[in-house]
């Protein structure tokens, strides 16, 4: 609960930051429209008692005053309607505005989070912040908050009127309403407990169905249908129970509160009647008014308590959203940046505004330029994802400009981890990594990454045309340059064969293309950005021989003249590497070129001869 209060106050601050005036206008408009509403109701009595009743039995009654009074009432109602219109529409501005603000802030912040966040959190959970949780907020802002303001003001106004009429009766009401509110809280708690349970079951059913439907063909092949049904029934039943309970509690809140309100009314009527008739300290008219007030008091309390659930849900959602916003961004303290450069005639470097094909590291403090060559050196690097569980030990290696370095080893040996360290997706614990003699910790992360191309095993393409995807790495690239790169990567032929060619729109991670074609696009994309250093994670499976050949050729062409780190899954592709590093359990156990390693007759030899023997 305390946590909720904290979230609420933070949320209000968040909303207040940009929508303070709108909120004030809304509050005032709600206030006026509520007052108009009540005033209208009360005026009705005056109308009947003071204007209409006197006319009864009068011959030739004159209605002018009556109609004037009605006109007055109409005017007040009109103001009420206009204020209602005003706040109903303003509330939409605020709720949608806040929603957009939160969405944008969330995404903007998410983009700055370290890779670790994405590796450690469930992707489905992250996505639900954007849809489900923001929607719970919308509900709260557009429904619950106006509701609370309206009912809250009414309750206060009614309470003051009651106090002025009769204090003992008011005390009885206070007791009664306290009882109602406590009851509402108990039911509300139960209900939101089951709503949260239900949310969990929904997630469970979702995950189960998703997994099973993805594997539906396997179910068929293994004639596993009956078991699949049984498992489904269990979780389906659980979802049913939680939904039923959540809805039951939500449904019964209204009748319970409403009818207890009636009971309170009866108690007041009896007590009030008793006091009035036996003691004469209370007028009959006052009791009638008091009873009317009692009704509206319980009614508004009832309506206020209906908001409990939606506020609780919204608070939970807001809590999760703030959690994301509070995640620490990736640190980026590097002062050395990457600039385009051109060589003067005397061989010195000069910064250039345009893309020249030559890059230089610029030290923002000393204003010196160092040409980017692609020299990478690891010295005694240790790394662990989880504290005290080292996955890399004492890794030292170097790659001179233009060299191809290959990593070989079993899954989990640490090949991919090394790639994660070069571009600082993760930061090392001990040792140093140097890039052209500069410690990479001093380089601005964005610039560091711009200088490193990456082709990963899992290809990720974005919704958009093929051309847009190719241009991903360098927005300024012309169509010709992109096509040139596609030709280099052997992707041009298949792209041309698509009905829309380079303008083909890819959706769903390029679902319509084969694995090999997507790999080719990833290579071409990398070629467009033309980085001096590359990290290649070879694709392994599901490529037919012809495409594989094309991919290999594309990669070979891309590698020319660059420093390349290859994470190898097949030994045949790395025979020409300058150095092959064999990794086992996070340590480099062998290094050398193909011939040397074969001569060494170690692990590489074993791996290789396994292959050799077969062919």
């Amino acid at each position: 609960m305390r946590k909720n209060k904290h979230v609420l106050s933070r949320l209000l601050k968040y909303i207040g930051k940009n929508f303070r005036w709108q909120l004030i206008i809304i509050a005032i408009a709600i206030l006026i429209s509520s007052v108009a509403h009540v005033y209208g109701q009360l005026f009705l009595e005056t109308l009947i008692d003071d204007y209409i009743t006197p006319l009864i039995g009068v011959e030739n009654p004159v209605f002018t005053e009556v109609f004037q009074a009605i006109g007055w009432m109409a005017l007040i109602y009109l103001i009420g309607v206009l204020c209602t219109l005003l706040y109903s529409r303003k509330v939409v501005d605020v709720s949608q505005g806040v929603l957009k603000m939160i969405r944008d802030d969330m995404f903007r912040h998410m983009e700055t989070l370290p890779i670790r966040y994405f590796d450690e959190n469930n992707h489905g959970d992250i996505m639900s912040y954007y849809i489900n949780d923001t929607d719970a907020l919308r509900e709260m802002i557009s429904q619950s908050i106006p509701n609370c303001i309206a009912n809250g003001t009414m309750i206060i106004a009614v309470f003051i009127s009651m106090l002025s009429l009769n204090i003992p009766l008011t005390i009885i009401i206070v007791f009664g309403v306290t009882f109602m509110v406590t009851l509402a809280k108990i039911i509300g708690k139960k209900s939101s407990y089951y709503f949260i349970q239900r949310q969990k079951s929904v997630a469970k059913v979702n995950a189960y169905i998703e997994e099973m439907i993805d594997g539906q063909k396997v179910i068929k092949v293994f004639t596993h249908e009956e078991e699949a049904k049984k498992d489904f029934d269990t979780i389906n039943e659980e979802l049913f129970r939680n939904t039923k309970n959540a809805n039951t509690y939500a449904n019964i809140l209204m009748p319970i509160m409403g009818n207890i309100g009636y009971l309170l009314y009866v108690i007041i009527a009896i007590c009030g009647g008793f006091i009035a008739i036996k003691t004469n300290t209370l007028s009959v008219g006052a009791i009638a008014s008091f009873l009317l007030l009692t009704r509206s008091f319980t009614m508004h309390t009832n309506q206020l308590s209906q908001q409990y659930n939606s506020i609780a849900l919204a608070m939970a959602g807001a809590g999760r959203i703030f959690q994301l916003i509070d995640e620490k961004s990736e640190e980026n303290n590097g002062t050395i940046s990457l600039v385009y450069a051109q060589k003067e005639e005397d061989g010195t470097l000069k910064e250039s505004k345009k893309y020249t094909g030559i890059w230089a590291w610029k030290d923002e403090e000393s204003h010196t330029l160092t040409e980017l060559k692609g020299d990478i050196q690891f010295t005694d690097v240790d790394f662990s994802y989880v504290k005290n569980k080292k996955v890399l030990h004492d890794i030292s290696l170097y790659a001179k400009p233009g060299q191809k370095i290959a990593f070989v080893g079993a899954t989990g040996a640490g090949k991919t981890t090394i790639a994660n360290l070069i571009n600082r997706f993760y930061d090392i614990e001990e040792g140093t990594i140097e890039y052209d003699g500069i410690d990479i910790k001093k380089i601005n992360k964005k610039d560091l990454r711009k200088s490193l191309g990456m082709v990963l095993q899992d290809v990720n393409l974005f919704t958009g045309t093929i051309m847009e995807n190719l241009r991903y790495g360098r927005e300024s690239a012309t169509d010709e340059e992109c096509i040139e790169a596609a030709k280099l990567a052997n992707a041009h032929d298949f792209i041309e064969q698509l009905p829309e060619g380079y303008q083909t729109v890819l959706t769903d991670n390029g679902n319509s293309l084969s694995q090999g074609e997507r790999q080719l696009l990833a290579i071409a994309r990398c070629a467009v950005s033309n980085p001096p250093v590359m990290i290649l994670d070879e694709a392994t499976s599901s490529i037919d021989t012809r495409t594989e050949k094309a991919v290999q050729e594309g990669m070979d062409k891309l590698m020319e003249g660059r420093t390349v780190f290859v994470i190898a899954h097949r030994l045949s592709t790395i025979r020409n590497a300058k150095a092959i590093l064999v990794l086992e359990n996070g340590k480099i156990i062998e290094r050398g070129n193909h011939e040397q390693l074969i001569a060494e007759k170690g692990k590489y030899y074993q791996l290789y001869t396994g292959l050799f023997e077969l062919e």
Partner: protein
Amino acid sequence: MIKKILKSVREYKKATLLTPFFVSIEVILEVLIPFLMTKMIDDGINQSNLNVIYLIGGILVVISILSLIAGWLSGKYAALASSGFAKNLRQDMYYKIQDYSFSNIESFSSSSLVTRLTTDVNNIQMTYQMITRIAIRAPMMLLFSLFMVFSIHRKLSLIFLVIIPILGFCLIYIANKAHPLFESVFHTYDILNNRVQENVRGIRVVKSYVQEETEIKKFDQISNKIYQTFLKAEKLVAWNTPIMRLCVYSSIILISWIGSTFVVGGSLTTGELTGVITYAAQILNSLMMLSMVYVMCIISIPSMERVVEVLEEKPTIVTPENPIKEVKDGSIQFENVNFSYSEKKKKYVLKDINLQIQSGEMIGIIGGIGSSKSSLVNLIPRLYDATTGSVKVGGKNVKNYDLNTLRDSVAVVLQKNVLFSGTIKENLRWGNKEATLEEMKKVCDIACCNEFISKFPDGYDTYIDQGGTNVSGGQKQRLCIARALLKKPKIIILDDSTSAVDTKTDAMIRKAFKEYIPEVTKIIIAQRIASVEDCDRVIVLNKGKVDAFDTPKKLLKTNKIYQEVYESQKKGEKKDEEK
């Protein structure tokens, strides 16, 4: 359509009927309560008659308790009926999907099936609850109140003949206008969802190309589009409350204006005037509720359509009557088989296939992309049916077998294979529920899994994450092979199932196949020539036709395609040897 869906109500029919029953009681009592309250004030308090106060107070206590009970029960049964109905609907759909054949599954995308089972069912559930509760309450309230007004003063009730159609028209107009806007919001939400997903999944690409700013810009655009449309839609809906108030207030004004002359004229008492005004609010309120039901219904109609589509899909492959319950041996025959995925388009992906495979043979299949290798083997366990011609297993047409019998005897390790979240043991047991650890160890030996399973701290109890993301591609493939072997099939088909396995292990698996399961027919689809080199015979497929079917040695001499592939894959190694 509605009839079809309502079939799933089943055991919740009682609860469904009890809900409106209790709702009606609630409504009647609710209408009585204000009536009694006025009476208590008029006859009791205003007349200073304590006895009347006690009497009416007593009646009111009884009535409110009854109303509370009725409200409680109606709420409870409404929840029970709607969530039970939803449960049955999900169950019916899921069971139906279990009967789907491969081509049925392909006609829906898996993400659409998930939405249908969850979001769509949820929409229907909410509408159902709303209908059982409000669709009874609102019209009852409306009619009852109209009746009361009519019985109080006939001429005064004419006001409602004007106001009800106006309000009704406005509410429906707004609902109809806003609906397409909301649809478009949901559609844009899908795009937003997709953007976020791409970014979460491809964050490494985004970061390594330093495209955070561009992605934020792209996101802003969509976010802005949602903002604009949502704003428009909700601003439209925001008219509802003011219009509602305007109608209520206008009727109050009209009633008091016209009513005052009646009161003075003597045809209406002041108490009746207040009564009419109270009923006016109730009448218009019920109209508002009805319009909400209307909106709910429009929203859920597409959901209903999508659900019915799943329920009405006809499984294309079913077990015949009097099926054969035993597969004699692992022999396979294809006789004049043609096959096309779509019945309408007669574009055959397999043409004129005639094959004879003996029980226990090891058969390799190679061919380029689009040569229909997978299509060919999918016909054997009847994952699809041949369009013309016949496929025989153990000498009998596959169409005559009991589906379970056939598929238990023909184990396919699919190209796109899946492990399920659960321990390794649980995953293996898919092959055979009663398998002992010994049996598992044995098949894992054949599939070369023991080597890595023994390295896991939890061994066979190691938990596999959803999608098998915590084991490597090669390990996953090997586990899938082990799982298939545990079925003790007569035929085992590996559809490119060792592509991620290193070549040495790949060869070991094939060697183990020959040693341990010599009687089982083995069919191996592969990209690597090395994977089929030690097969008894190899089928070379080209564009859906059998180009050659012979021993690898002969193929190397006679078949051009085989030679080509062989050359391209062996060249590298040859060069190396020469060095």
